[in-house]
C-alpha cells in the first residue's frame, strides 16, 4: 500500500518537475525594456502551424522567414539582425491571443500574422493593449482594422491584403461588363468569413448592375466532393459562377464542374492563387476561369521573379499567395522600421500608418487611413495552364 502510494507520488512529482522546467523556459526570454538595447530585433510570427488552416499559416511563415533571411543577409535593419520568433496558434483564436501575450513578453517590436480574420481578432486586444503593431498577411474581413461599432481604426492593426468589398465588387463588375453575364450562381466557402465577405459584395454589386443570382450554395473547408451541388447548379444554368474560397477546395471544385459538363466561366478571389490550381484542376478545366489578385506569380516584374526564384530555391516549391503576403509583411515592417529609424513599436506603428508606395511582391501599396493597403487589382485569367493578366485596375 505504502509503496503504491509512493509510486503515485513519485509520478506526480515527476510530472510537476517536467511542468516547472517547461514553465521556467517559457518565462525567461527577453528581460530587456521594450525599445532598449538589444542585439537583435525580435519579430513575432504568430501563425497557424497546426489545426484547420495550418497550410496557410505555414506558407505565410515560409514567406516571412525567407524575407527575414534576405534582409539579414543584406545586413539587417538599422545595423541589427531580425529575429523571427515562430509560434503556433493552432488555428484557434484564444491560442492566438495567448501566443501574442507570450510574444509580447519576449519584447517583440511587431507581430506578423495570424492568417485568418478570426485569429487576428483573437490577437488584436493584446496588441492594442501593449501598443505593438500587428501586420496581418491575409485577414480580409473589413472589421479587422476597423471597429464596426465605433467606426474607429484599430491603431495597431495593419494588413497587406485586399479587403473583401474590393475583390467582390471587382469581380462583379468584370462578370457583368466584360463577360456580359446576366445570371450568376454563387458557390462559396461558407466556413470562411473571407469567402462569405467576397460573396456578399459580389452579390450586391452584381444585382445592382442588373444581374440575377440564380443559385446560392456553399461548401465548407475540407470538402472534396462537390458533385452533388454542382449537379444542382448545372440545372439552374447560370452565365457565370462565382466561387470565392481557397484553392484547396476550389481546384477540385472547378475540375469536377468541368467534368460534369459545366462550361460557364467561373470566377473567384486571391484565395485561388496557388500553383496547385493547375496541377489539381488541370489546364483545360481552368480555361475560362478568372480571379482577382494583387499580382501574378508569373509576372515578369523583377521583384516578383526574384521572389519566386528565391522561394523555390529555399523550399523547393512554388510560392502561393500566402507565402507572397507573408513575405510582404516583413518587407513592409522593415520599411517602417527604416523610416522610423527606431525599433520602438510606437514609432514603427506611426511609420506603418504613413507608408506610401511600398513596392511589395504583391504590388505597390499605400496604407490608407483605415490601415488597409491601397493597391492595384488585377483580374487574372487562366489560359492553357498559365496565368495571364486580363484586366488591370488601378484604384
Amino acid at each position, binding site marked *: 500500500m505504502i509503496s503504491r502510494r509512493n509510486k503515485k507520488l513519485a509520478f506526480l512529482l515527476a510530472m510537476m518537475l517536467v511542468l516547472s522546467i517547461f514553465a521556467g523556459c517559457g518565462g525567461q526570454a527577453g528581460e530587456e525594456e521594450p525599445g532598449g538595447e538589444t542585439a537583435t530585433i525580435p519579430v513575432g510570427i504568430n501563425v497557424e502551424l497546426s489545426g484547420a488552416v495550418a497550410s496557410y499559416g505555414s506558407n505565410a511563415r515560409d514567406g516571412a522567414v525567407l524575407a527575414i533571411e534576405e534582409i539579414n543577409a543584406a545586413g539587417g535593419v538599422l545595423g541589427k539582425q531580425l529575429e523571427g520568433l515562430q509560434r503556433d496558434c493552432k488555428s484557434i483564436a484564444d491560442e492566438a491571443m495567448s501566443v501574442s501575450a507570450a510574444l509580447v513578453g519576449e519584447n517583440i517590436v511587431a507581430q506578423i500574422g495570424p492568417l485568418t480574420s478570426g485569429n487576428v481578432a483573437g490577437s488584436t486586444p493584446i496588441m492594442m493593449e501593449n501598443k505593438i503593431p500587428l501586420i496581418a498577411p491575409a485577414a480580409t474581413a473589413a472589421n479587422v482594422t476597423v471597429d464596426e461599432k465605433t467606426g474607429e481604426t484599430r491603431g495597431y492593426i495593419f494588413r497587406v491584403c485586399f479587403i473583401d468589398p474590393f475583390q467582390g465588387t471587382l469581380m462583379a463588375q468584370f462578370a457583368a461588363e466584360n463577360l456580359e453575364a446576366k445570371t450568376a450562381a454563387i458557390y462559396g466557402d461558407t466556413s470562411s468569413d473571407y469567402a462569405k465577405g467576397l460573396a456578399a459584395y459580389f452579390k450586391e454589386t452584381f444585382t445592382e448592375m442588373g444581374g440575377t443570382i440564380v443559385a446560392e450554395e456553399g461548401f465548407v473547408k475540407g470538402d*472534396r466532393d462537390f458533385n452533388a451541388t454542382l*449537379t444542382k447548379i448545372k440545372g439552374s444554368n447560370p452565365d457565370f459562377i462565382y466561387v470565392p474560397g481557397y484553392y484547396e477546395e476550389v481546384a477540385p471544385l472547378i475540375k469536377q464542374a468541368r467534368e460534369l459538363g459545366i462550361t460557364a466561366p467561373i470566377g473567384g478571389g486571391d484565395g485561388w492563387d496557388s500553383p496547385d490550381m493547375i496541377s489539381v484542376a488541370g489546364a483545360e478545366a481552368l480555361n475560362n476561369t478568372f480571379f482577382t489578385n494583387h499580382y501574378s506569380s508569373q509576372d515578369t516584374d523583377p521583384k516578383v521573379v526574384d521572389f519566386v526564384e528565391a522561394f523555390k530555391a529555399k523550399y523547393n516549391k512554388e510560392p502561393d499567395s500566402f507565402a507572397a503576403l507573408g513575405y510582404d509583411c516583413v518587407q513592409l515592417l522593415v520599411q517602417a522600421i527604416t523610416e522610423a529609424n527606431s525599433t520602438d513599436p510606437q514609432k514603427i506603428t506611426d511609420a506603418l500608418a504613413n507608408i506610401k508606395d511600398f513596392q511589395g511582391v504583391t504590388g505597390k501599396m499605400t496604407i490608407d487611413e483605415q490601415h488597409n493597403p491601397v493597391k492595384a487589382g488585377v483580374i487574372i485569367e487562366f489560359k492553357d495552364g498559365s496565368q495571364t493578366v486580363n484586366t488591370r485596375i488601378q484604384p
Partner: protein
Amino acid sequence: MLEFLQQMINGLSLGAIYALIALGYTMVYGIIKLINFAHGDIMMVGAYVGFFSITLLGTDIVVAMLAAMIFCAILGVIMEKVAYRPLRNSTRIAALITAIGLSLFLEYITVVILGPTQKVFPASAFPVKAYNIAGLSILNKQVFVFVSAVLLMVILQYIIKRTKTGKAMRAVSLDREAAVLMGISVDRTISITFAIGSALAAAAGVMIGVYYQTINPLMGIIPGLKAFVAAVLGGIGLVPGAMVGGFVMGLLETLVMGYGNSLYRDAVAFGVLIIILLIRPTGLFGKNTGEKV
C-alpha cells in the same frame, strides 16, 4: 430524374470510400471493441505512401495502392503492438485516449516531416475520362473507386467467411476465451485484423488521392469521423453493416447537398445517426443483446 440518377452516381462513389474506411473501423471494433480514432489517419498515411510511390518511384496506380496497403498494414500492426496491446486489459476509455493520441501523432508527425500543405496527385497517374451514357456523366475514376471498393469488400468477405484466418478472427471477436481454447493465438489474430483493416484504409487513401487529387496531413479527420458514423449506423462490428452504412452515408450526404441546404449536410448525417440509434440502439443490422443478470 436525370439529375437524380447523376446524384446517385455521385453518392455511390463517395459511399464506396466511406464504406472502405468504415470496414476497417468495424473490424477493429469487432475484435477488440476499440474505436480506433487513428483509423482515418492511417488512411492519410496510405494516401501519402501512394503519392510517393507514384511521384518518386514512378509506379502506376495499382502498384501504388499495393505499396500503400502493405505499408499501412505494417503500420497498423506496429500501432497495435506498441500502443493498444498494453492496454488490452485496461478500461476502454484509456484505449480511446490512446487512439486519440495516435491520431494526433500521425497527423502532426506528417506535418513535421512533410509540411502541412497539400500535395497534388499527378493527373498523369490516372488520366480522367468521362463517359456519357444517356445524358449521365460517369467518370472512369468513379468507376475505378466503386469497382475497387466493391472488389476489396468481396475479397474481405471471402477472407472472413471462408479462410481459416478469417474464421479465427470471427471466433476471437465472438468469444475470445473460447477462441484461445481452440489454440487460436489472439495476439496474432488481432495483429492480422489490424493489418487488414489498415490496408483497406490505405486503399481508401489512395482512392481519395486519385479521386480528389489532393492530400494533406489532416485529410483523415473528417472522412474518418464520417466512416465511423457509417460503421455505427450499420451496426458496429458487422462487416455488411459497415458497407451498407458507408453507402447510406454517401447517398445521404449527396442528397442533402443536391436537394437541400448543403450546409446542413453534416447535421443531417448526424441527425439520421441519432434517430437510427434511438430506434435501433445497435445500428441498422446490430443484434440487440440484453445484459445477463
